[in-house]
């Protein structure tokens, strides 16, 4: 086997204290090295709970989660798990600790007890990987939302993780900030082979993933490639989720009798398909 399993969830259930029903029940999945996985779900579906379980912030009530081979349920593994699976949270303001960008990036390293002289190059390369090195000496509150999230990514990157978990990291950003953060994380996924678990409720973001897990009422109800998942439009709508706009448009057009192919996700694919069906005649 040449691709390692990074995250393995075996029959995981989680119930909040005093909650009548479990937030997650019997979840089972696997994430392999270098994969970009999107976890989709509407509010209260349990997707955030899932993120916190992957980082040992919550421990499964039942079942077991292995992160890079470490069982999150074992006390002695907590720091190993958190170092290997870094987490970005939703609110950009509430995850920056220090008053200067570079010091915030160093926060995780300080916690791990990395020697000071080793910190400087690691902070620098983490900041340049997210293209924030120009802001190394800035005060975080003067940055835009997208920039703050990139600083948060750098803070995790400095710890040299194998997995990045983004818990709705783009939910509070404007469209350009959203693109900026997703692009940053995708390039880390492609260029550094960092495995990504991208939790979101934006379909357009999920459409860019290698694989999608759809969570509803604490269960994984659909999983597969974006094409497979969005194929069954009615099912996705039943789960109170949207399909990407182009997929919906293609379905409408097919209903009207246009023989578009299945599995169109992006504007580019749609344009290509339309072009194929009705080629533009040259003017002469």
């Amino acid at each position, binding site marked *: 086997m040449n691709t390692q399993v990074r995250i393995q969830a075996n029959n995981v259930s989680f119930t909040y204290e005093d909650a009548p029903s479990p937030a997650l029940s019997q979840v089972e999945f696997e994430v392999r090295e270098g994969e970009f996985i999107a976890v989709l779900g509407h509010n209260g579906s349990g997707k955030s709970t899932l993120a*916190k379980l992957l*980082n040992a*912030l919550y421990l499964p009530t039942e079942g077991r989660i292995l992160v890079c081979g470490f069982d999150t349920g074992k006390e002695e593994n907590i*720091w190993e798990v*958190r*170092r290997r699976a*870094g*987490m970005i*949270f939703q*609110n950009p*303001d*509430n*995850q*920056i*600790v*220090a*008053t*200067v960008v*570079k*010091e915030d990036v*160093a*926060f*995780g*390293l*300080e*916690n*791990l*007890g*990395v*020697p*000071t002289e080793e*910190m400087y190059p690691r*902070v620098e390369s983490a900041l340049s990987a997210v293209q924030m090195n120009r802001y190394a000496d800035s*005060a*975080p*509150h*003067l940055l835009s939302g997208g920039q703050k999230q990139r600083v948060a990514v750098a*803070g*995790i990157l400095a*710890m040299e993780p194998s997995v990045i978990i983004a818990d709705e990291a783009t939910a509070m950003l404007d469209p350009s900030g959203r693109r900026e953060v997703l692009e940053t994380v995708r390039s880390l996924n492609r260029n550094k082979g960092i495995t990504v678990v991208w939790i979101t409720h934006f379909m357009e973001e999920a459409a860019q993933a290698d694989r999608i897990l759809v969570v509803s009422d604490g269960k994984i109800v659909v999983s597969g490639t974006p094409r497979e998942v969005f194929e069954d439009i009615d099912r996705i709508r039943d789960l109170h989720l949207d399909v990407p706009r182009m997929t919906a448009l293609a379905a409408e057009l097919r209903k009207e009798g246009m023989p578009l192919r299945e599995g169109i996700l992006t504007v580019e694919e749609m344009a290509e398909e339309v072009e194929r069906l009705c080629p533009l005649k040259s003017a002469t």
Partner: protein
Amino acid sequence: MLTNLTMGQYYPVDSLVHRLDPRIKLVLTLAFIVSVFLVNSLPGYLLIVGFIFLAARKARVPFRLLLKSIRPLRMILIFTFVLNLFFTAGDQVLLEFWVIRITSESLRQAVFYSLRLVFLVLGTSLLTLTTSPVALSDGLELLLGPLKKIRFPAHELAMMMTIALRFIPTLLDETDRIMKAQMARGADFESGNLIARARAMVPLLVPLFVSAFRRAGDLAMAMESRCYHGGEGRTRFRVLKITRMDWNACLTVVLLIVLIILERTFVPASFPF
């Protein structure tokens, strides 16, 4: 405006005093306070004034800015002066009418006590004007470090200070936002008497507190997920180094104290004033 508030009193210029190690500056400020209490004659006070003047020059802090730091203290100063003037016993009466009796001893005491207060404030202001809050909390953490043995939470205090500094601008922004939102709904923060205005603050403070608590919860989780587990086994990104300049500053303060002690021993206390 918001950035100014974060930095508190800090006067950001590059100077000899700004570059001193915060630990040294803290210790020297303490030594200075002690030396102010050692002084009890005019020549001694002249020494202190000279030292403050020199330090302010080296720190490139405008003297006017330094003097401004006394303003919030003016009521206490007047109180101290008047109290000492009227209620110190003495023989050489300068002025006497009704129940008031001013003697030369009481005048002397009143002036000196007030001067002491002024110098205390000037000395500590010089520290806060030349040391950023972050450096200050760093210095405090390291100085109080040895007290960890008796379970004094030095690291936790410094961390709390850093987080407070980090969140002041964020919460100010939020206050501004909530205020505008409430004003758009007809809230009035400006008119009415004191009680009415205090009551008007309730719809501002409640959401602010709720959000501060939510932020605290979020931040705690983010810190934990980045492996924060207290001060134990933690290394530091910012390293403090004691340089030659620091030793020179120490020597200057030692010199000041020696001069003051010499002055106390050899100049008679009854010297003109």
